[in-house]
């Protein structure tokens, strides 16, 4: 009997802004192979890019000696993307941006990444790796009508 083993794709990227594009294009390629429609692929691309940017900026603090890991796992119509860094995980909670406060300078214009990740994928979770690094887990699922 053939076991149903999840397929995985792994990347390791430098902690430099711009390399998140490699992760988002890879995630898009895998999602298209699985049959996700363009709208979901675009959602995933933005979520993956934001997770990578946070990993580079806040997790690895732009330390070029460190890399970020991206693990894409495909199983039963689900695509899970883990973004791993050497930080200690997020110390902020996800909050919806308040555009009026931003426009009046009462809230930083930046700081929407975690909100976008949570809003654009089916599941977004911030954890720590067993070795103490930061990990963001994103998941999108094929709806039955998309399969």
């Amino acid at each position, binding site marked *: 009997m053939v076991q149903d083993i999840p397929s995985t794709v792994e990347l390791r990227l*430098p902690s*430099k*802004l*711009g*390399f*998140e*594009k490699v992760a988002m294009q890879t995630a898009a390629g895998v999602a298209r192979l699985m049959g996700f429609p363009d*709208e979901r692929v*675009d*959602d995933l691309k*933005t979520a993956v*890019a*934001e997770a990578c*940017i946070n990993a580079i900026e806040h997790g690895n603090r732009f330390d*070029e000696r460190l890399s970020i890991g991206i693990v894409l796992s495909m199983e039963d119509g689900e695509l899970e993307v883990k973004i791993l860094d050497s930080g200690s995980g997020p110390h902020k909670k996800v909050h919806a*941006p*308040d*555009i*009026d406060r*931003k*426009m009046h*300078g009462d809230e*930083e*214009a*930046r*700081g*929407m*990444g975690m*909100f*976008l990740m949570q*809003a*654009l994928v089916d599941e977004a979770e911030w954890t720590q790796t067993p070795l103490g690094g930061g990990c963001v887990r994103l998941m999108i699922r094929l709806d039955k009508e998309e399969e």
Partner: protein
Amino acid sequence: MTMQPQLITRVHVDQAKAGDGSPIGVLRFSGDITSTSRDVLFGGYAEVPATTRKLVFDFSKVEYLNSSGIALVIELLMAANKADRKVQSFGLSPHFQKVFIMVGLNKYTHLQADEATACAAFVD
């Protein structure tokens, strides 16, 4: 030698006219809008004559926009708001129209279907 990823932002400033003949400054963004885009974006904004009260943001040639880039768009809108300038936008993909609405940006710049609609949308 380490490789530096290329993130390139361009802004081309054009002028159009509103229905009442008043000038519109059209900022045509292209390439990437990210945290590294500040000087280029605000440089383009500064090219618009101070007397121009109507602005159109053209996103149709933007290839990559992330949350740091959206934050800079917010800062441009703050600058426009302070100067009592109205801003219409067009050319966003359906995905980024959705993202702009998610973060509430459509309250400060109307998202129009195309340039003609954006220029016609100024009511005074």
